[in-house]
């Protein structure tokens, strides 16, 4: 029985993926598919939550698994704090990536890695669910099955496709999973949990931004 269910799920997965990326939609149509709770929480000043990230790299037999928490602050950026298997904080703010670990801070600007500007914009637009902004760079896809909604993104231009082939956002009441296929075909899965929309960003979180 279990094996049958698993087989049915496995068979259904590629179909569901293919169906999502069938025909691009307008930003307003995609937004209408998303639950009201998700839309409301995306409107807040900040969004906090926990994450479990798995990176499947072609060169490694096992995925790289990490977990921690994050803070997204509108107009400020994203703090991505990894707690396991190492303790490090990544701050995507403006066009820079700041990494902090054990009192050491390292800043990587868009001048050293210009792709960061695009990543920074993408992260901000994903958390704020700013579909109109995403629509400028991506073709948008969407579908809804019961309470479950999915949004697909594919770059409009080859230049961006060399860094990111596609991204998929899944959720029901809240955003639950983000899957990114990068330009090399490597997959990153991020499970999001305990999402909370915050009206005012706590002072300690605010102080962590540059």
């Amino acid at each position, binding site marked *: 029985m279990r094996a049958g269910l698993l087989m049915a799920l496995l068979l259904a997965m590629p179909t569901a993926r293919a169906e999502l990326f069938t025909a691009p939609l307008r930003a307003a149509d995609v937004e209408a598919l998303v639950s009201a709770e998700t839309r409301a929480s995306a409107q807040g000043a900040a969004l906090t939550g926990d994450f479990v*990230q798995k990176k499947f*790299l072609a*060169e490694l037999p096992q995925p790289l698994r990490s977990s921690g928490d994050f803070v997204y602050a509108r107009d400020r950026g994203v703090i*991505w704090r990894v707690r396991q298997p190492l303790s490090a904080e990544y701050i*995507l703010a403006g066009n820079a990536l700041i990494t902090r670990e054990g009192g050491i801070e390292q800043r990587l600007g868009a*001048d050293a*890695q210009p*792709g960061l500007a695009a990543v920074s914009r993408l992260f901000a637009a994903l958390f704020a669910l700013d579909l109109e902004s995403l629509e400028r760079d991506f073709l948008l896809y969407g579908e809804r099955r019961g309470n479950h909604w999915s949004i697909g993104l594919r770059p409009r231009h080859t230049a961006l496709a060399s860094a990111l082939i596609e991204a998929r956002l899944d959720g029901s009441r809240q955003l639950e999973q983000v899957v990114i296929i990068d330009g090399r075909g490597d997959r990153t899965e991020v499970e999001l949990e305990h999402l909370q929309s915050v009206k005012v960003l706590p002072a300690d979180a605010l102080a962590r931004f540059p």
Partner: protein
Amino acid sequence: MRQVARFRLWLVAMLLLLTFFGLHTVPSLKVDSNLLAMLPVQQRDPGAERASRRVSDGFARRLLFLVGAEEYPLARTAAAELATNLRASSAFDSVQFEPDAAALRPSDAEHAARFGLIAAPDRARLAAGAAEALRDEALRALYSPAGFARLTAVVDDPLGLFDHQLARHCQHLAARLSKAAFWPSVMGARSGCWYWPRLATARSRKRSRNLWRRLCGRRASLLRRAAPKCW
């Protein structure tokens, strides 16, 4: 009086010499960028020279156009118009409006040489020998949420040495091109201007040189006609 006559004679001789130089020598002058040509004749390697000629010929035939506009869609539209006009001119073997993803990545030659192509700050960092700090940095890169922004795979170059080197190279290029940020993978915008790179391959090296001269000479009017929305 005799001195004046001698001076005039000398002046005429000089003018004749200059005229001869201008008519005979100047047209055949050319800049030779082949470093192998500086080797003594007995140390020259015909195989290496052939390979060098082939590589430089390949590069010499390629013309890169950067089309700029204040808005990204406008830069793209203008670049599309320019591509159409370049194709219609039949002067080029190929015109890549939107190069495929593989073409935007570092070439095999660049990739093979990546460990020798290290930017000066990285070279100094490696020479300092802080192995533990470098190991921690490599580990952080593996778990970074922005890993997919990198040009090279994180497992291949966890310290991003090749990315940094390429970025510096592009900055030098950008500095000459009205300070616009240019990146082969993801186009950047600075000073509110987007740039869209365009790669065209001429039929021959000579033709490429001639085209380039014509473009430089009539750049404004040619580009105005090719991409009117951009101007």
